[in-house]
């Protein structure tokens, strides 16, 4: 059967994609940002998953104001990069895993999570930047072909209200149950992306709250239940209007049901307007529960 072995989180800052595309990943400003992913690249090369369930938000690319799904799952064979105003990023299409995606969709709906099924979707920096920082070469070149298949899970964090942190956590639990009931023997990762503190709008733009972010990172392993009850207003006040993206990390965390070990952490300020955060978590129970 399939099992979720790891949970990863990372910010998905668009400037990272732009620097990769332009070959400008060195220099004093960018080098430490990319350096923090080298450990992860090596670890993934040695422990390559079969499939990544990639939780992200669409930034008004696939979904405009006509349709706003709170939770959506991508069931297509592949997902092409969206044109966000600069032309599509020169990255390969992301291969999907329609069979697992449909299984998760059906299982979640029967588990009372009525997730929206998407059969055609372009994906923006919210999904492509995490793929790059994890799977690019160590000199930050995008591969010709991505090494894993991906099940995109898109979460509305643009139009209020987004889902609560607790609801996100419970969706993670439902996704974990769905994966466990998939018969094929697959090594599955779940990634939560976005965040950490940042505000991209208004006179308060540029807000960064290192103390809050680092406490959030600590609680991911030390006392994750506390994260479930953080209210939207706290994210907004403490971490800026776009810090709300961190609810997506809770889908990842809710899907890890065993003893969780932090293998790697990267936190860096600033990356463009944003506090960059990245965690690699190992789900210790996954190996033993299989039997």
């Amino acid at each position, binding site marked *: 059967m399939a099992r979720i072995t790891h949970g990863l989180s990372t910010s998905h800052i668009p400037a990272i994609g732009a620097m990769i595309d332009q070959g400008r990943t060195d220099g004093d400003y960018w080098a430490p940002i990319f350096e923090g992913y080298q450990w992860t690249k090596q670890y993934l090369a040695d422990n390559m998953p079969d499939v990544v369930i990639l939780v992200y938000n669409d930034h008004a690319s696939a979904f405009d104001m006509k349709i706003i799904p709170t939770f959506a799952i991508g069931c297509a064979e592949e997902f092409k990069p969206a044109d966000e105003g600069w032309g599509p990023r020169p990255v390969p299409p992301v291969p999907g895993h329609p069979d697992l995606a449909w299984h998760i969709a059906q299982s979640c709906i029967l588990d009372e999570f009525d997730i929206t099924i998407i059969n055609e979707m372009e994906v923006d920096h919210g999904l492509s930047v995490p793929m790059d920082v994890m799977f690019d070469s160590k000199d930050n070149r995008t591969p010709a072909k991505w090494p894993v298949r991906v099940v995109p899970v898109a979460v509305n964090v643009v139009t209020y209200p987004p889902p609560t942190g607790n609801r996100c956590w419970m969706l993670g639990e439902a996704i974990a149950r769905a994966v466990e009931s998939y018969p094929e023997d697959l090594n599955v990762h779940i990634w939560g992306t976005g965040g950490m503190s940042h505000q991209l709008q208004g006179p308060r733009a540029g807000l960064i709250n290192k103390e809050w972010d680092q406490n959030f990172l600590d609680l991911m392993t030390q006392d994750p239940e506390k994260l479930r009850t953080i209210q939207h207003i706290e994210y907004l006040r403490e971490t800026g209007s776009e810090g709300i993206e961190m609810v997506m990390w809770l889908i990842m965390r809710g899907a890890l049901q065993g003893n969780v070990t932090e293998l790697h952490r990267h936190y860096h300020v600033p990356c463009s*307007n944003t506090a960059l955060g990245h965690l690699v978590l190992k789900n210790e129970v996954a190996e033993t529960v299989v039997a």
Partner: protein
Amino acid sequence: MGDEAVTQTMPRDVHAYLAEFDDIPGTRVYTAQRARVGYHLNQFAMSLMKDENRQRFLADQRAYLDEWDISEDMKQAVLDRDYNRLLDLGGNIYFLAKLFSTDKLSFQDAVSTMTGMSKDEYFSMMVAGGRSPEGVRSIKDKN
């Protein structure tokens, strides 16, 4: 961070939930009210995801804007690239990103225009660790 009440994590009263957003200084939360006012403005911005539309817009901005069911205020704010005004008129930053990307402006440079700082001042503030949350959490609590 968080509290003990696990079963009810959010206020069930939508009015109380929304009212708190107005207490955050220098911030326009993208509520349903704003989304409704800004619907066509945001859809105009979405249209700039197509290269042919970007070219048409850049060739004659006024004529392109006149094709959309949006107010004169909105059109003027687009022409002025007044992003704070566009937020007030129901624009959302991820939609408006299509406008500043059409201008070949990065998120950082576009965002700096809303802060009253120059591009360089904003960059320096970010490199120094960003804007502190101290004093800008709440209008009423002045913290």
